[in-house]
């Protein structure tokens, strides 16, 4: 089968989804949703976390079976029972996380996904076809490069090429730009736009970045709580319309007023810190920074540039190989006594894995920092679970944690509520030093506004906040001082007043191998 000629000849299918419903137990994740994607459209699927976007595309891709409704492809009812069926129909998906084999070359990765590969691969013939295929594409990669040497943007391109090579005429991109620099994101979305404009493929872009939707999509469908909340031409909608469709009529928490004050003494100091990753490769190199009382220091950077290892060291989850950390003017040994005395609080990424105990209840998880203090421990020894539950109930109400109750297991909560649980725990007592990493990753707009407000409030009250985030908008909104981390180093620093998006973006991409 020759993919190249197919891509040139075959028009993308028209896809229409009608009355799609999907239930998980008592929860209706998708309720009678309809969506129409004409051939060659660049269609954005917008919605908050849990609005049903991924359920919808998973039904379309054959990962889930819908309970009701159907999908028409070119007017014909299609039965999509497995991802294989979807592929046969020319529907392809590019996932948020890379699915490439990093020890293989570009060519091998392209071939590896094909069905019916056979026992023997005729490489010379394959290469010829791949070369022809690449020549036909608006963006190219060298066939012999090993994937591990590609940058994040190139990997994303390869994921897209892989789908096109498999013959997908209809591509779903699931938050494709979350790991890219702003420049890379613009480039990739621009290229996709060229392909849709030429009528060669249709694209469904799942995103919560309104800027990207406005810049690239033609049409938009918005989901809210599993239902269709609105749709239209992007050109005829403005940003507030889209936000209202996503969030409903409720008000977002107003962004917290920033108190202008001079930052105080340095509460957290990192001096010449070096850290290795799991493989023993240096991940953080000679990193030095100060965070002062009453300021938010934001560290921007593309994920995988040492941020995670850095936070792990601050959390006591990884040993430093050089340098040291000072807190409150003294060397920080990451003991419970120091954490308590200095008020050091931490909200790491992936909080369910890094800061919670699965199998324990919400109340127990809310007590990890305080279970051995009065009134939850009598005499420091005897656990008072009733007291623990009572305090938890208070925090659940105060931080709007949606849970069946204090006794529900933490893993039954949605991602956003796990995040709220950890934040409630960390902010329930006075924090003097607060370290947060990607605090709003995957949260809905309401939760994002709320959590950012809490962080700014803490800053206003004199907490030293270190914010490590891959979301540049978040850094620009919150930080008093912005640092860029690349390849384990701080490569750029700018105060909030002089911050320039382009400049920061360039430094983020600085390390390109």
């Amino acid at each position, binding site marked *: 089968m020759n993919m190249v000629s197919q891509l040139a000849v075959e028009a993308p299918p028209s896809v229409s989804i009608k009355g799609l419903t999907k239930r998980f137990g008592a929860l209706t994740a998708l309720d009678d949703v309809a969506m129409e994607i004409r051939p060659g459209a660049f269609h954005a699927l917008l919605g908050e976390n849990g609005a*049903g976007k991924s359920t919808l595309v998973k039904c379309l891709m054959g990962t889930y079976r819908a309970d009701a409704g159907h999908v028409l492809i070119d007017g014909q009812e299609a039965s999509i029972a497995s991802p294989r069926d979807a592929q046969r129909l020319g529907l392809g998906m590019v996932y948020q996380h890379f699915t490439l084999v990093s020890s293989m070359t570009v060519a091998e990765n392209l071939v590896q996904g094909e069905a019916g590969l056979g026992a023997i691969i005729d490489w010379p013939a394959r290469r010829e076809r791949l070369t022809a295929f690449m020549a036909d594409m608006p963006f190219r990669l060298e066939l012999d490069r090993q994937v591990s040497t590609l940058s994040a943007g190139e990997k994303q391109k390869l994921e897209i090429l892989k789908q096109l090579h498999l013959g997908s005429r209809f591509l779903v991109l699931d938050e494709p730009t979350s790991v890219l620099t702003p420049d890379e994101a613009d480039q990739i979305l621009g290229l996709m736009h060229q392909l849709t404009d030429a009528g060669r493929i249709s694209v469904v872009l799942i995103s919560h970045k309104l800027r990207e939707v406005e810049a690239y999509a033609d049409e938009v469908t918005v989901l809210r709580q599993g239902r269709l909340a609105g749709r239209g031409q992007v050109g005829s909608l403005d940003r507030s319309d889209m936000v209202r469709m996503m969030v409903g009529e409720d008000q977002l928490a107003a962004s917290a007023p920033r108190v202008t004050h001079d930052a105080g003494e340095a509460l957290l100091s990192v001096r010449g810190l070096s850290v290795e990753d799991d493989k023993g490769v240096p991940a953080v190199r000679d990193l030095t920074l100060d965070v002062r009382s009453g300021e938010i220091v934001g560290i921007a950077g593309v994920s995988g540039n040492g941020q995670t290892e850095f936070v792990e060291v601050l*959390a006591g*989850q990884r040993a430093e190989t050089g340098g040291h950390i000072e807190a409150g003017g003294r060397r920080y040994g990451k003991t419970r006594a120091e954490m308590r005395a200095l008020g050091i609080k*931490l909200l790491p990424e992936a909080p369910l894995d890094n*800061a919670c105990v699965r199998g324990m209840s919400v109340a127990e998880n809310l007590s*990890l920092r305080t279970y051995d203090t009065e009134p939850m421990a009598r005499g420091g020894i005897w656990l008072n679970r009733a007291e623990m539950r009572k305090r938890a109930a208070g925090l659940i109400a105060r931080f709007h944690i949606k849970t069946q109750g204090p006794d529900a297991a933490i893993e039954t909560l949605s991602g*956003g509520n796990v995040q709220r649980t950890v934040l409630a725990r960390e902010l329930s007592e006075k924090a003097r030093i607060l370290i947060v990493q990607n605090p709003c990753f995957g949260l809905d707009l309401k939760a994002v506004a709320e959590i950012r407000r809490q962080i700014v409030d803490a800053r206003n009250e004199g907490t030293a906040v270190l914010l490590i985030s891959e979301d540049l908008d978040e850094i620009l909104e919150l930080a008093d001082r912005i640092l860029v981390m690349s390849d384990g180093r701080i490569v750029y620093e700018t105060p909030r007043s002089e911050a320039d998006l382009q400049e920061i973006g360039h430094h983020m991409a600085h390390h390109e191998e």
Partner: protein
Amino acid sequence: MNSVEAVAINAAAFVITLALFGIYVATLGHNPLDVYYVLWLGSFARQISIESTLTNAAPLMLTALCTAIPARAGLLVIGGEGALVVGGVATVLAGMLVAGAPFLVGVTFMSLAGALAGGLWIAFAGALRQYRGVNETISTLLLNYIAIAVMYHLITGPMRDWERVLKTSSWSIPDALRVGALPVIDVHWGLAAGIVVCLILYVVMRRTTFGFGVDVLGGNPRAAQMAGLPINRMVLICCFMGGAAAGLAGAFEVTAVHGFASESLVVGFGYAGILVAFLSRQNPAAIIFLAIILGGVAASGGLLQRRFDLPDATTQVLQGLLFMIVLASNAAYGRLNVFQPAAWRTA
């Protein structure tokens, strides 16, 4: 943890095991129903079989703790056999030291010696893990062989009782310091000790801040690190407590059953204890009941073999089957819809 779920899954595991065991004895030409009846006769049907069951259960309770307590902190320790043997040898040495002491003083001293020896033995494996990165499962397995070899060395040489010619053994502890039977029932005091230790550790694990911290560590070490818990110390304490329990089992095997250290200490109580720990899902209170059930299997083994002329390994086949099924049944936890509260996902 959902205890109804644990009981149901364990009961199912027992039923499946008995069914498979029935197939095994059927291939040997016996009626499985007769075999089940004899199992019942030998374990719980009469006073004498109940006494035998409880005598077997006593050390199992204590060796089960040797796996269960470290397991709560996230370790897989299988060194109960070695800790029991080390505890037994230490008890004999202590008994020699306190010959002539009043009964309570002497027995207390011997029990503490046994517990201390077993505790240090497993704490050593814990220290190897925390400070040297040695896998605790491998090290405790090897420490079992070392403990047994050391005991054989001692009872065939330095500590040998040359008066006893038919059975190689160590010196005997003074008769005045031998522990007798409980009131009412002819089972030694080790049973009471086992039950009390299980209950104490249940309270420690469920009701104290230490136990809570251990559960955090066992549930997610990264969360424990983030909370600044003293992880090394907690691991060592858990290992010590587990090892001390198994060492205490060795002490009672010496003071209440044999009177000396010999190969009779190496009869697999340590390994059967691992099974009990898994069945109880590391819950010290549940260990009491499951040790009694496993004690019943051990107690009826002899009768089973004699009555049906089955091979000696038959009870081991039964125990092994049970272990396999129990391990496999762990996969069932959380998968049976009956036991799941409606998941509360806030969309």
